[in-house]
């Protein structure tokens, strides 16, 4: 049975269902319970549920042993998730904003990401790090990046970028059940978007792209929030007879190259939309996949629509300029179809 819920509720529901199903799943992070409920036994008391209320109510249902507020010590609690995963739990750690990865990266890439390999396959680290990404909140340079390409770059780590309430729930359930460390990137502007989501548990497989809109003239690969802008652009372009196919990779590591290639071979034109900075980005990687594996099919040089190579600015008009828009996507599509 499906009903309409928000992206925020979809994430909460995924965690809740997995914590009910598997007692080894725990969650920890800064203020994820939050407020009175952290210290009072009273399960009815209101809990803050994280900065943006995503984990609201979990502490009332599962208690403080499994829903843990942490000190502002990202190295120690993300590292504790690694140690707990390596010894038998399935922890979810919340890194409040991805911009904070600088204070705990060692535990993610040197410990979680390398342990299995360094130990000759004799360890597994089934953990999820959930973290907020993206511009649009006027939150300035240290609370607004996407920067997920950094994690896709790293062997041993998987990375997913949900874009709808449906895939937010299914990808998170898949990530929690996965035996490898998974980075799960939640775009803060998407939290209030709504969509149809089944009540029951289901999995959106890691490493599988989705065709968000079928089309035959141009392939637009769009990540996270950019999927919404790509769909808007596609509606505009349809009026001019340009039929856009929108591909949402959903996972950036593993990356579903075959779905992207199949689409590009069909449409023969490619635009990649990515809110991340352009250097060493997923946008560049996807263009490389197309040009090295489908060169003969391309009728035009691929284009990318990305954030510029700058930090995220604060002032509203500047931030709006920074984030790729439906208009910029439409212009890029027109340019490759000329």
């Amino acid at each position, binding site marked *: 049975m499906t009903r309409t819920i928000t992206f925020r509720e979809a994430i909460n529901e995924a965690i809740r269902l997995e914590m009910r199903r598997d007692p080894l799943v725990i969650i920890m992070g800064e203020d994820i319970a939050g407020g009175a409920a952290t210290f009072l036994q009273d399960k009815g008391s209101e809990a803050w549920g994280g900065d943006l209320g995503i984990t609201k109510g979990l502490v009332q249902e599962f208690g403080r042993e499994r829903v843990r507020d942490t000190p502002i010590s990202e190295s*120690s609690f993300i590292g504790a998730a690694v140690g707990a995963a*390596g010894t038998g739990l399935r922890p979810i750690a919340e890194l409040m904003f991805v911009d904070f990865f600088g204070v705990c990266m060692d535990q993610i890439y040197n410990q979680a990401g390398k342990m299995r390999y*360094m*130990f*000759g396959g*004799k360890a597994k680290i089934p953990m999820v790090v959930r973290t907020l990404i993206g511009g649009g909140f006027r939150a300035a340079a240290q609370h607004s990046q996407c920067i997920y390409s950094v994690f896709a770059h790293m062997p041993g780590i998987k990375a997913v970028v949900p874009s709808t309430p449906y895939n937010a729930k299914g990808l998170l359930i898949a990530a929690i059940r996965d035996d*490898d460390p998974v980075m799960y990137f939640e775009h803060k502007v998407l939290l209030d978007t709504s969509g149809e989501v089944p009540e029951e548990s289901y999995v959106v497989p890691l490493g599988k792209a989705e065709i968000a809109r079928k089309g035959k003239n141009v392939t637009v690969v769009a990540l996270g929030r950019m999927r919404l802008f790509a769909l808007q652009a596609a509606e505009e372009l349809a009026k001019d007879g340009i039929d856009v196919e929108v591909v949402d990779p959903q996972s950036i590591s*593993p990356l579903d190259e075959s779905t992207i290639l199949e689409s590009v071979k069909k449409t023969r034109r490619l635009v990649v939309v990515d809110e991340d900075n352009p250097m060493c980005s997923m946008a560049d990687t996807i263009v490389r996949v197309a040009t090295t594996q489908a060169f003969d099919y391309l009728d035009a040089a691929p284009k990318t629509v990305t954030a510029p190579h700058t930090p995220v600015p604060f002032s509203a008009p500047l931030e709006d300029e920074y984030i790729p828009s439906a208009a910029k996507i439409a212009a890029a599509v027109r340019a490759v179809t000329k």
Partner: protein
Amino acid sequence: MAELSKKELLAVYERMRLIREFEDRAASEFAKGKIPGFVHLYAGEESMAVGVCHQLTDRDYITSTHRGHGHCIAKGMDVKAMMAELFGKATGSNLGKGGSMHVADVSKGMLGANGIVGAGGPLACGSGLMAKVKKTDQVTVCFFGDGAAEQGTMHESMNLASIWKLPVIFFCENNGFAQTTPARYHCAAEDIAGRATAYSMPGLAVDGTDFFAVREAVAEAIARARRGEGPTLIEGKGFRYYGHFQGDNLSYYTDQDRADQKARDPIDKFKKRVLERKLVSEQELAAVDAKCKQLVDEAVKFAEESPYPTLDKVFTDVYVSYP
């Protein structure tokens, strides 16, 4: 704390002796070019690893450091698999994919030597958290050096372990030097153990070269952790015979340092004590010496004769699954 039986004393002596034999041999095999990469040797600190680990079971965990061979042996790892790992062979404990700085055996509760100074603290909080959530009586010992004591991760981890009352023992092996930088320079405190006060946990400094002093301090900390009363910080003051890594010319050790080290040798100290009290005989200790030499000879032979990993192993075990 119960006295150790003769059998237990000999087992303790064997682990310490085996570490020394292994490390001395690793030094000579490194010098011959048989062991590649970075090697950080534990000789001189045997009383700390063994003083701690002989009180643990395979279900208890330890996290380790750059200088991890001693912890591995003390926790019961097979020296053949360890030596093969140092040689980079397919039969190594990590299939030749980790080397000296990453030797591990999770089945023995050994969560890996670690190339990142101070990285073990958060990991130890994690295995401690596992035990707490699963309501087992497992404890975790986090070994770290005086150098790591200055890393933020260690401060964060001691605080986290304390507020969550995690069953973790933070054991600082203060060998006096962070690479070449002396602790009296890099550490603002006289005793690293004194920092325990800041994290509301018991803290004590002991002579790390005295097996019995280490054993006694750790016994109480383990009991406290198993009772669910939370972490303890113990600082063992000791030294290392070899440099930070093999190739370090030890220009920072004075002749006096050398003489002091010899006088504090943890194995000599242990022998003297058990012989004076007639708990074991010279002959029994000599038999252990011979056994350890043989075990290490066999380990080197095994490592030399083992094949290198096949080239496909570059690509395996990055993930459990990756389409």
